[in-house]
């Protein structure tokens, strides 16, 4: 094995294809996005170099701040809902005393395999202001908390975030459950001998040992929130007005509805940077935590 890793030709041969694919498929397009964001460009004609004008306009655009605020609200909601619920369900399903574990394991994962369109249509019915399940439920329990869930400029983004959290919770659940199963049973037996309760055993053993899994889930949820698009595209079309815009949506409408590709790419550049910063911060936080431990 040692000899194999010291074989320079083998290293080159095996890494070069991946490196080339990464460069062509990811790195070059990102550079193009960045470069083209300095142009006034309609996507077809020759662009006009305008320096940082697109960025100046972006930071003066109300939609940019709405998009950022929504990105963070979306990320916060899906992070909390997915990770907290997935942890709770995974611990429950991993417990051999719980009956019907197999059923729950499959049930929690079902939304993940559904098409986003199907899920959105389902929730559109649930959120319907007149006939939706949610408003009917409030009506049935005698509450007057009926809402225009998707037509309310403040609540719509939260309602959409819940849909995403509901669909992808199963994915986070599967990751955490796999993590829990990889923890040796002897740790829990030792904790039991020391008199630790189940709750203590999970807080002192399960959760700390799943740090890497949580880091991965957190990165997925946070970046997924910042770059969310599909649910708002299907459910609200970014509306009412631009109240459910995210940066991805701003990029899309600028490019394809306004024909301002340069401006859309400036939004895309900021989006890439935000995702990178989020990943760096999360990595730093987990590294610090590991060092402290």
């Amino acid at each position, binding site marked *: 094995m040692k000899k194999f890793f010291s074989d320079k030709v083998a290293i080159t041969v095996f890494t070069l294809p991946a*490196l080339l694919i990464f460069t062509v498929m990811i790195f070059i397009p990102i550079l193009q996005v960045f470069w083209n964001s300095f142009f006034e460009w309609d996507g077809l004609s020759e662009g006009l170099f305008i320096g940082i004008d697109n960025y100046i306009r972006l930071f003066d655009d109300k939609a940019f701040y709405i998009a950022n605020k929504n990105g963070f609200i979306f990320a916060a909601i899906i992070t909390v809902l997915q990770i907290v619920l997935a942890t709770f369900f995974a611990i429950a399903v991993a417990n051999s005393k719980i009956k019907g574990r197999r059923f729950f394991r499959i049930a929690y994962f079902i939304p993940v395999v559904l098409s986003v369109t199907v899920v959105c249509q389902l929730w559109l019915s649930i959120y319907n202001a007149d006939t939706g399940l949610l408003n009917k439920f409030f009506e049935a329990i005698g509450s007057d908390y009926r809402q225009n869930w998707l037509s309310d400029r403040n609540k719509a983004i939260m309602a959409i975030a819940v849909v995403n959290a509901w669909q992808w919770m199963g994915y986070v659940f599967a990751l955490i459950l796999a993590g829990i199963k990889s923890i040796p049973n002897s740790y829990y037996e030792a904790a039991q001998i020391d008199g630790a309760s189940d709750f203590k055993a999970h807080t002192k053993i399960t959760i700390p040992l799943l740090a890497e899994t949580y880091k991965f889930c957190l990165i997925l949820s946070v970046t997924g929130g910042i770059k969310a698009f599909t649910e708002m595209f299907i459910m609200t079309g970014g509306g009412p007005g631009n109240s459910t815009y995210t940066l991805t949506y701003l990029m899309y409408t600028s490019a394809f509805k306004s024909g301002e590709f340069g401006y859309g790419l400036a939004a895309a550049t900021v989006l890439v940077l935000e995702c990178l910063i989020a990943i760096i911060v999360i990595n730093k936080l987990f590294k610090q935590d590991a060092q402290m431990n």
Partner: protein
Amino acid sequence: MKYAKKLMSLTMGVALGMGVLAGCAAKPAETSKPADEPKAVAETPAEAPEKTNEPVTLKIYAQYSDDDTKIPYDYAVQELAKAYPNVKLELDIQAQDDGQKLQTYAATGNLPDIFQVGLSQIETFKKSGNIMVLNDAAQKSGFIDKVHEGSKVNLYNEDGNIYAFPYAGNELVVWYYNKELFEKYNVEVPKTYDELLEAVKVFKENDVIPMSVFAKEGWITTALYDAIAVRYDAGGIDKLDKGQGKASDEAYTSAAKKLNELVKAGLLPDGVTNLNYDQAAALFYEGKAAMFLNGQWEIEASTQKLGDKADWMYYPAADEASYEASKTVWAGGGAPGGYAVNPNSPNKELAAEVAAFISEKYCEAKYKLRSNPMLALKVDASITPEKPFSPMMERLAKEIPNITSTTKFAWGLSNQPLKKSIEEQTQFLCTPQYTAEEFIQEIDKVIDRTNK
């Protein structure tokens, strides 16, 4: 191992360097020329297309989604088979995607031979040389002579050229109402906004939705705003598009405030911004909504569903005097658009000829099979509609000669950023949480930026 690391670093460096260079070389090329210099391709002069019997297949990108588009298209294809037996059309159905697919075709050099376009795409394609100037083809085929005088606006672009063969005439925004519901609750057809507010109050008290609008689509909320704006300024949104007015002008501010007031009074149903056409139309057809807004093409469907109960009214105005005075002013109207031709098509001359033919037959079918008289072209006098015009259409047809001005539908706006913004902002205005001041500020910002 050290050597291997160096080799890896070198490889990565080269790969990144290549990336940077490739990124820098990517379109758009830097230019000192103004970006809007038109490049539309002129027809090759003089040479008439040789008529051969060799079979030719032309790709066409056209609407084909409902009876109103399928029936005329199929009719035109049948007629084409008689007139041009050697020409076969390969249909690529137009996606409802704000022109993304067409733009992608243009960007990748895959434009079909013939394609349907709206004004904003004509403007973009003109600059990039992806649309053919059809002046000669229109002249030779006699197309120009067949266009109604009032529809010349649909034929000629602002620069005086023809880029597409239109078929739709000056279509209108029509304010429909359910006569039976108005009679049942003793509500007069409103002439003024005060009367409209009173009608809203009565309908709401009786659990009837005053007005149904498929506000999930931005063009119809724009049409609603425009129907109010034209009662204050006949120019409506067309004037904003041309940069001749601003949302902060008194007329447009009054319109925004009035719409806001009506929405707050309950004119529109709960969750209106999430209603699509089917849902909104169902409310009107089932007698759950007293009024409905759509184009005049809705007449056929509404007559089918509601029969004599459905009718249209003039848009209300601030007072009775302006209501009477502005009866001849309508929201909606035409803009250049229709069947365009790819200048890089190997059969561009033939494609231009076929595009003109298809457009003409499309009009013929709309008149004959869909009983729609609102067309860009004159239809042969020997052709009569299979079904007589519905009473609503009869009434509207009588109004058409009296119309003194129209505006535009959102898709006819040439200022793309304004189109996007006004669609969003009018949708926002359909929610009670939004204010007229926010609307005015956002629209003015776009107008100021795009008119610089």
